[in-house]
């Protein structure tokens, strides 16, 4: 048995559909004892690179899910903000305290935005905002503060501390839609 070096013209005459893949395969022939040629398709090293590139391309083009973290001690408000955000096709996780929010932030790497209530027992939204902005890992995440009270001092303090926006409750879909451009 001998190996005959590649002769792409001969093989593709037999398989015209494979002509476009000619750069991806090496073609050798093995001459059988009976005399006829048996084609041998060996993948080119470039084929592996090709598949790798294709899979990276597909991954990059996949939908980047926007994941919002909503923090509120009121179950009614959590249900409301979650519904408004989900209606805009955002993925939402709700927690009931600043402490749980910080715990989740250490585990979840890809939070696009934090929306938090101001008045919460134990840790206020302002304190949560400060913690986020003081953390080198988390400070890039935009934080929006919500409150049922229109207190200009409070609003200014939050904005000065780095809050992206301040929403008055009850929150409406129109309030949330103007936030979408600020998501990370």
């Amino acid at each position, binding site marked *: 048995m001998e190996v005959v070096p590649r002769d792409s013209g001969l093989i593709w005459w037999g398989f015209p559909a494979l002509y476009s893949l000619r750069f991806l395969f090496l073609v050798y022939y093995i001459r059988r004892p009976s005399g006829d040629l048996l084609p041998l398709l060996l993948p080119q090293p470039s084929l592996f690179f090709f598949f790798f590139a294709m899979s990276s391309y597909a991954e990059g083009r996949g939908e980047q899910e926007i994941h919002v973290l909503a923090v509120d*001690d*009121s*179950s*009614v*408000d959590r*249900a*409301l903000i979650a*519904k*408004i955000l989900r*209606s805009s096709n955002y993925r939402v996780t709700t927690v009931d305290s600043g402490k749980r929010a910080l715990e989740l932030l250490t585990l979840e790497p890809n939070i696009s935005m934090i929306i938090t209530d101001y*008045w919460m*027992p134990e840790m206020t939204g302002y304190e949560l905002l400060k913690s986020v902005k003081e953390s080198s890992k988390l400070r890039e995440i935009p934080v929006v503060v919500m409150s*049922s009270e229109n207190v200009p001092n409070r609003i200014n303090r939050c904005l000065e501390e780095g809050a992206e926006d301040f929403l008055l*409750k*009850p929150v*409406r*879909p129109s309030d949330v839609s103007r936030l979408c451009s600020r998501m990370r």
Partner: protein
Amino acid sequence: MLPLCSRVLLSHPFSPMSLMALREQLNMLVNSMYIEGLLDQQFQQLQMLQDASSPGFVAEVINLFCEDAERILTELTKDQAVVDFQKVDAYVHQLKGSSSSVGAQNVKLACIQFRQFCEENNKDGCLNALNVVKHHYYLLRNKFDTMLQLEQRIQAYDSKQQN
């Protein structure tokens, strides 16, 4: 107040009312709640958020509100001999927030009054205000119960029609 014929119909839960009649009854109930000030614009926002993908959204929010409100009212009713104004104010603030989010206008306004009395450290005013809040809340809850029952009957009718 609902007209007499509706009250009679409501008291016979097994009367075979048509789907259209049920829907009309529900609409009349909700409209009367708006007119009487039990509900405000925010409730409309909730209704608009409910869609095919979440047909139970309004019911869910109503149930969460009622659970929350009853928990708070129970706490406020305890220990009426000594009034810790700060603690009471915190509870009323919570109730005001959830009633505002659900569109429970009368309850919300009663809570705002209540907080005034807390700020003034007025014990009698607070006790009175608590009764007013309870009155408005239980009135609202009765109507919510009727509303949810009607909705359930309508949905049952709809799914029966489909089968």
